[in-house]
């Protein structure tokens, strides 16, 4: 143990101290250790030395099917049609990211279920003292599908494209305020240094598979040409890509990781506009796997033993904002009353058949290691809600219009909110709008999303809560539909971003969770699971909460 201590950095030693002191669990230690760049064998050794087995593993609900997958065969998959060109810089949708993930690879990978980080194209990574610089060592021997070696020049080129604040990159939603063009430099052929705009203890997550744009592409290659070449380092290579119709990939026999070649000979993706035809295609035997199903759309599959449901916990959620600067929500007691009238377990059962986690009116989902779960869970309390309304001078209740996006389960959620609020004497009028109308011009003054008194907005999965703590809630946030302006909150978030150790993050998280529970600018009612489905005879399909369908370890069992 002393040897490990001597060779470990200050941050790593601090993490070890936290576990020895019992302030974090072994599971949290492993998860956080992976972020700091400590290898799984090293973490296991430390856990064992501290008197316990590494119990961070376990069955992964993100992997479909039982039995041992056999090598060979063609796996047919139904996914949603990509909304635009397959360009790694601009892709921002599930169909597109799924295509990138077939041939492209990332520096790191976060386990879909445990959020533990593992190196993929990167061997290891270490931060400086305040986590404002991160140095990544790349694996040697990695090659692109044309046989050329992957080096730090490729990583620098890719990251500069994605982080250019003057460019049109979709990854700016992750890299904005964290990394800019020029911040990535090559130390040598296999070492890359990231110099960040501000300290960030979670940076290795930002170059993981969850930042789906961050596949490493060849230095100098034109990202617009990617949909012709599909040139990556992955275990599959393009066979055919037909815009708006589908794509097929075959095993890359020259894959650099000789120990882990793709199992299937071929994978075939068919693009669908809508969910019902995908489910019918699975039931009719046209496809073997559906990349994503909803509980309402896929109810027939959930109880059918002929199919395996892949259930991945995610931090995806809906935010129900209440305008803090507009009547009737200027008084926080009114916002609290609204939140107290919600039967969260009932809503989860009705909308997701239980396949979601409770939200506690903050972006801190239960999965995040930094979430302080000791903060009391808000539960339905109609008496207290009525009392708060009475104290706010609204003993007879009030009426409010709820703007809803006509997408996913959101219209049903609106009905649930309407029914629950009625019990507290609140009359909710629902205004359903198409996503195009709801988001409008995406700017304040020109968007029902940002201008409505009350609205419901969909937010995708994030491996770390940084983006969710920023744009929707900071005083200067560009997605601040609640118009929440609280200097104390802004200060806490700044501290959270700069915190490099888990205990500090957890302490600040507790303060943020408590503050948001009190202020209640936004209701976070649930964090729903990401679901996919396969035939029973298919095993090893990995589905991630952002929507990847990874098939390199998949195969038929019969």
């Amino acid at each position: 143990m002393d040897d490990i201590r001597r060779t470990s950095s200050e941050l790593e030693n601090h993490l070890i101290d936290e576990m020895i002191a019992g302030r974090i669990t072994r599971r949290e230690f492993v998860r956080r250790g992976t972020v700091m760049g400590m290898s799984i064998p090293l973490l296991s050794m430390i856990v064992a030395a501290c008197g316990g087995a590494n119990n961070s593993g376990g069955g992964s609900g993100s992997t479909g099917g039982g039995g041992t997958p056999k090598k060979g065969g063609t796996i047919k998959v139904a996914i949603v049609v990509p909304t635009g060109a397959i360009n790694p810089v601009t892709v921002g949708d599930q169909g597109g990211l799924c295509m990138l993930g077939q041939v492209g690879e990332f520096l790191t990978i976060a386990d879909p279920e445990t959020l533990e980080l593992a190196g993929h194209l990167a061997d290891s990574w270490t931060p400086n003292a305040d986590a404002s610089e991160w140095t990544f060592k790349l694996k040697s021997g990695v090659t692109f599908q044309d046989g050329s070696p992957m080096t730090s020049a490729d990583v620098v080129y890719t990251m500069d494209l994605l982080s250019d604040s003057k460019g049109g990159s979709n990854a700016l939603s992750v890299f904005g305020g964290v990394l800019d063009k020029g911040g990535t430099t090559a130390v040598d052929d296999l070492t890359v240094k990231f110099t960040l705009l501000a300290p960030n203890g979670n940076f290795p997550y930002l170059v993981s598979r969850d930042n789906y744009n961050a596949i490493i592409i060849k230095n100098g290659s034109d990202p617009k040409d990617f949909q012709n070449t599909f040139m990556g380092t992955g275990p599959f290579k393009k066979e055919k890509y037909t815009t708006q119709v589908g794509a097929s990939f075959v095993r890359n026999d020259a894959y650099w990781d000789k120990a882990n070649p793709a199992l299937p000979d071929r994978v075939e993706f068919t693009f669908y506009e809508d969910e019902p035809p995908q489910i019918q295609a699975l039931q009719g035997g046209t496809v073997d796997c559906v990349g994503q199903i909803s509980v309402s759309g896929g109810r027939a599959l959930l109880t059918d033993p002929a199919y395996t449901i892949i259930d991945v916990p995610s931090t995806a959620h809906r935010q129900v904002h209440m305008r803090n600067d507009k009547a009737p929500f200027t008084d926080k007691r009114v916002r609290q009353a609204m939140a107290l009238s919600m039967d969260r377990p009932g809503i989860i059962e009705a909308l997701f058949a239980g396949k979601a986690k409770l939200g506690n009116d903050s972006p801190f989902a239960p999965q995040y290691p930094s979430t302080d779960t000791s903060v009391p869970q808000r539960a339905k309390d109609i008496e207290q809600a009525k009392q708060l309304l009475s104290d706010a001078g609204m003993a007879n209740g009030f009426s409010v219009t709820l703007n809803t996006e006509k997408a996913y389960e959101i219209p049903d959620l609106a009905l649930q909110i309407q029914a629950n609020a009625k019990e507290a004497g609140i009359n909710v009028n629902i205004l359903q709008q198409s996503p195009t109308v709801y988001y409008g011009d995406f700017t304040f003054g020109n968007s029902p999303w940002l201008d409505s008194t009350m609205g419901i907005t969909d937010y995708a999965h994030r491996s770390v809560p940084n983006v969710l703590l920023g744009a929707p809630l900071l005083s200067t946030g560009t997605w601040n539909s609640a118009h929440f302006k609280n200097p104390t909150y802004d200060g806490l978030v700044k501290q959270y971003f700069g915190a490099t150790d888990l205990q500090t993050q957890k302490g600040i998280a507790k303060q943020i969770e408590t503050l948001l529970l009190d202020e209640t600018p936004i209701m976070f009612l649930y964090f729903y699971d990401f679901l996919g489905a396969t035939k029973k005879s298919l095993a090893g399909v990995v589905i991630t909460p952002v929507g990847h369908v990874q098939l390199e370890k998949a195969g038929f069992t019969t």
Partner: protein
Amino acid sequence: MARFILRRLGLAVITLWLISVWVFCSIQLLPGNVGRSILGPLASPTAVATLNHQLGTDKPALTQYKEWVTGVVHGDFGTSQKLQVPVRPQLTTALRHSFELALVAFLIVVPLSLIGGTIAALRLGSAADRGITITGLSLSAVPEFVTGVVLIAVFGIWLNVLPISATWEPGSGIGSQVQHLLMPAIALSGVLFGYIARMARAGMVEALDSDYVRTAVLKGLPRRTVIWRHAMRNALLPTITVIATQLGYLIGGLVVVEILFNYQGIGRLIFNAAAAHDVPMLEGGAMVVGAVFLLATLAADVLYSLLNPRIRHGSAE
């Protein structure tokens, strides 16, 4: 006749130009833009503006329209702003798919409706007449996607005898292609049957009640000759116009059926282009569907005049 056709073709070009202006003006009024549809709702305004600049979608509307028109005049339909692929191959493939589906649907519905309408007219007021009329009305009242879902559930999933997707594997033979198109074609036939059969029935009833048919009967011509040579020829005239106008619907108006059966037709292509503000793709699609409508009605008019000497002679004068 040649002058008539040439004049109609000239008018068609003007109509297409007006359609292109109308479509272009309409898309300017829709909220959103191409960059936003690619990057998604949560991308920063700066990133969206930069991408729009890179794609050229931030140019003044008139400049964009001029560029598009100049391209079309030179046979270049441009590049899809959203998909970054040339528009023409996309349109060609989608149009071919739509024609194939329309053809199978027509092969099913036209003979069935004509036979149904004729039988109903010949047995006016009988149980057969009522049965055909009520069946036609009922089928017309059920939207094609409802029929489609029922067909998929029964023939695709339960009996598992027909493919659920209308898209066939590359290299499939004609038999396999027809098999894939059968369910969507039947769903569409259900909607069209009532309409075409009703028109055929009305035309046939009117023809059978006419003086020339009475004369033919009194002349002692066999019943079959009276129906086929005298009544049917005149009874078909209004039905031909109806069938021609339905061709436009079958080519460009099948968004829901194409989505349900996962078929890449031109309706779905136009719908997606409109949703994404993809001007070149939308304009190209609108031109193709507009041209199909215009050519179909022109063909109906030509056929009408060939079958009706009064029209033919009138136009010659």
